């Protein structure tokens, strides 16, 4: 399932934009590929990053993956529920398993991200 309301990266992050802010997570494909996720580390609120920066870590029993920020901006919220209950990422990656909210500093960066159709093709769908 690839929701049509948001944009995607080649590295399997998604961003759902609402005004000046975007909510960021990883896709169902990414969560499934990692397997049972048992540890999530997210950046500090107020820190600023460039597009593509590694801002967090997602670990399953077997593997470690970096979370890359799809756009430049300042972290304005992190999902403490997911750090406390990492299994939310496997259970609801596009909803309650969101990871950070970012205040976009370069909104034009969104244009180069994949839409749902292109991301679906990337997955071979």
């Amino acid at each position: 399932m690839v929701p049509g309301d948001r944009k995607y990266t080649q590295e399997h992050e998604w961003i759902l934009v609402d005004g000046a802010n975007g909510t960021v997570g990883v896709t169902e494909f990414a969560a499934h590929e990692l397997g049972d996720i048992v540890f999530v580390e997210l950046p500090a609120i107020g820190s600023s990053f460039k597009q593509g920066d590694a801002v967090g870590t997602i670990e399953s029993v077997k593997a470690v993956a970096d979370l890359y920020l799809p756009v430049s901006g300042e972290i304005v919220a992190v999902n403490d529920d997911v750090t406390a209950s990492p299994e939310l990422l496997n259970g609801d990656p596009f909803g309650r398993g969101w990871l950070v909210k970012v205040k976009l500093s370069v909104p034009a960066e969104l244009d180069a991200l994949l839409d749902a159709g292109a991301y679906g093709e990337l997955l071979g769908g």
Partner: protein
Amino acid sequence: MDDLAGLKTTPLTDWHRAHGAKMVPYAGYEMPVQYEGVLAEHAAVRERVGLFDITHMGEIFVDGPGAEAWLDSLVTNRVSGGAVGKVVYTAMCKADGGVLDDMLIYRLGAERWLVVCNAANHDKIAAWMSGHVPAAGVKMDDRSDAVALIAVQGPDSRELVGRLAKLANLRDDIAALDFYTAFTCPGVTGEWIVSRTGYTGEHGYELYLPNADAAAVWTELMTRGADFGVTPIGLAARDTLRFEVCYCLYGHELGEDITPLEAGIGWAVKLKKDDFTGRGALVAQQAAGVPRKLMCLEVTGRGIARQDARVLHQGRDVGYVTSGTFSPTLKKPLALALVEAGVPDGEVLIDIRGKGVEARTTAFPFLSARAKGDPRAVRTLP
């Protein structure tokens, strides 16, 4: 995607693919790493019963009047003198005491033996044994490609194995099998070996079968075990299960640059028996003081320590993590580390991707095995 072309398969590969397993390359085989998920599979073995396809393991049969003494000369533990049906866990070492592999050796008859080695080391061990086999009195028969191996592990394993139609008249023998013993019996197309062994810390069995019998046995176990909630288990949960009870895994706690004394399996090294390869080096190491030890660590800071992460004590690099993951049973990140023998119990730091994360020593093993005794013995969790 992992490239699976050209890999060996097992008689169960089609079953794994058809039942949603994620298949990965492992020691030259295409093997299932997980089905529904490592946490659910891990719990199934701890609480009920799980099936493992471990056909990739190597099976080298040895027989002849010279076999007993020859095997004793190759390995660290004592295999000679045991009764038929006895199974021995041992290391096979190089002359310098480094571990070539760890293995099980079965006495199947007065002069008939079975050596079961790791898949990743099979070629090396077959070559090593061939290179040391005496000119007369011992015959080696490497049947690794002809023998399938199914592990049935978990508190319900005894009942489940006893339900196999072919073993119906052997139920009492199955129930009477002591830990680390085995018996042979006629199967469908050839001999079966029913063994009270495993790699999970739970009550369990390993069934050695001719390839042609394996798929039917697996399917029968899945069908007859439905009321137990029998579950197929991939290599990922096999690793977390053995890790929690601190069973060594070659390539992690064991290797050619690690001696069995350092790896904490000194109980499988009989320095007082007649000469064996590596004995001199191990006697010398014991006398001089074993320089490294395995340490059980609980990560108390935030992070999961993985293999090769460095361990720091009072600012000094004292060793490295050999295995580390999130323990599904204890629900916290744990690690085994090979460190200098002098490192005291207490606090250390583990370098997790450039960050010093707090950890502290904890009791060995992380979780007590109940492979012996009551399959449902209540565990006191630390």
